[in-house]
């Protein structure tokens, strides 16, 4: 059974690659700057955020743009990744109605192509680190841990959302609202202390994406993220759990997709 699934996956490896390629190609087709937008977009939004929020919260922090970017890039991968996975089944309805293909390929390829774009956009962060003199230490290598958790969390959430949105299209709108809530509780453009000092620190403990961002920032700023192990264990557990739930849910309902698209 398990062996069979690996065989099928091997057979459709080329399809997975094609779909990832297609996602990247079509995202920037017909724009003059093309793939350069992957770098320009976070650069420009960070400029805006720095100007707007830096005056409120970041006066005494010269590395504020790095602080923003390190969260903003991760959040925008989570946001675009889950959204594109959610729509992937409907987007490929034409194919699904005609040919048998293991359906998880569609949300998986959506998350993967967004991850590739995200990986490219990390160049901006490296640039900002050099400009604002946040020089990496040995702890930079631990950044791989939050990045892996981020990938799993996005994949898991994407699988859950793609399954549910086949049956309830309203979810596409609801998720936009949820994402806004997630964004404001990720401490992207403000310092955590300003909220925590007012006694609302518990909000962050509920948000696994914030925990991932916190760990990632620790790696960027040369700190040991394992100094507070709960902030590593919690998001790791949630990420793995989300994938397990996502796969189980997807598997249970995938045969009914065809009746609803």
């Amino acid at each position, binding site marked *: 059974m398990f062996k069979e699934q690996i065989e099928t996956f091997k057979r*459709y490896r080329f399809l997975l690659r*094609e*779909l990832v390629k297609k996602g990247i190609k*079509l995202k920037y*087709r017909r724009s003059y700057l093309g793939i350069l937008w992957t770098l320009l977009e976070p650069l420009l939004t960070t400029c805006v955020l720095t100007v707007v929020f830096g005056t409120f919260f970041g006066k005494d922090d010269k590395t504020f743009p790095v602080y923003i970017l390190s969260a903003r890039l991760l959040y925008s991968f989570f946001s675009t990744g889950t959204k594109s996975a959610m729509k992937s089944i409907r987007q490929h309805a*034409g194919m699904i109605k005609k*040919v048998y293909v293991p359906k998880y390929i569609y949300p998986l390829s959506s998350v993967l192509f967004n991850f590739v774009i995200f990986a490219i956009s990390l160049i901006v962060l490296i640039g900002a680190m050099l400009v604002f003199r946040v020089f990496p230490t040995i702890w930079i290598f631990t950044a791989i841990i939050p990045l892996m958790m981020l990938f799993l969390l996005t994949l898991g959430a994407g699988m859950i959302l793609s399954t549910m949105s086949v049956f309830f299209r*309203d979810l596409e709108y609801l998720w936009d609202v949820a994402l806004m809530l997630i964004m404001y509780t990720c401490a992207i453009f403000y310092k955590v202390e300003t909220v925590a000092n007012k006694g609302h620190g518990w909000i962050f403990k509920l948000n696994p994406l914030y925990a991932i961002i916190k760990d990632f920032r620790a790696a960027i700023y040369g700190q040991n993220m394992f100094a507070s192990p709960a902030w590593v264990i919690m998001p790791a557990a949630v990420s793995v759990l989300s994938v397990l739930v996502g796969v189980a849910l997807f598997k249970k309902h995938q045969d009914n997709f065809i009746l609803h698209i």
Partner: protein
Amino acid sequence: MSNYAIEVKNVGMKFNLSQEKLDSLKEYVIKMLKGQLKYNEFWALKNVDFKVEKGDRVGILGLNGAGKSTLLKVIAGVFKPTEGEVVRHGRIVPLLELGAGFDSQYTGAENIYLYSAVLGYSKEFVDKKFDEIVKFAELEKFIDVPIKNYSSGMKTRLGFAIATQIEPDILILDEVLSVGDAKFRKKSEAKIMSMFKSNVTVLFVSHSLDQVKRICNKAILLEHGELIAAGDIDEVAAIYQEKTK
């Protein structure tokens, strides 16, 4: 290896036709709480059981709503049958009518790779077949143009060229040969005929009995989701003609 290309074993396909289509969560919850979620059960296929030998060209006959397209979708693996099972020996390629399943922003060339990948072929294989596909579709000049700018005839030709040039084991044709101009129709019929030599199994649905007779050597007849006749094309065609009188 078995001598059969497809074994359809006692297949039944049930649909729940909901009274209204519920698209929103709110409606669903309200109806559920009120206990108004009622379904009409509808068996599109019931106890369908037959085997297709390798190299056979099977025409699937039946009036509208007899379950022909549902049967093809079950065989293609798109629908999972409610009862029974389908055993397939070899690779199934359904022919896309009017380029359904193509990505309209993608060019013809990109779509050839994409669609072949969907069918489970490898890149190396498509590389080899690429020129033949383009040539057969007569799209040399337009292959780098996005599909959205194609005419419906061009899309049909491209779909047909991909499905036949990659040498499938089992080819599914659902009402497709009636589109395209007369010239291409002749060419595509000739192509299907020539494929018989390479032992391709064909499942063919068409309302044109003449065309079915020309192409197929066997046939099955469906009525209200049940199999009422199977065998040589002439016998089954005679029964079908009797029914349609």
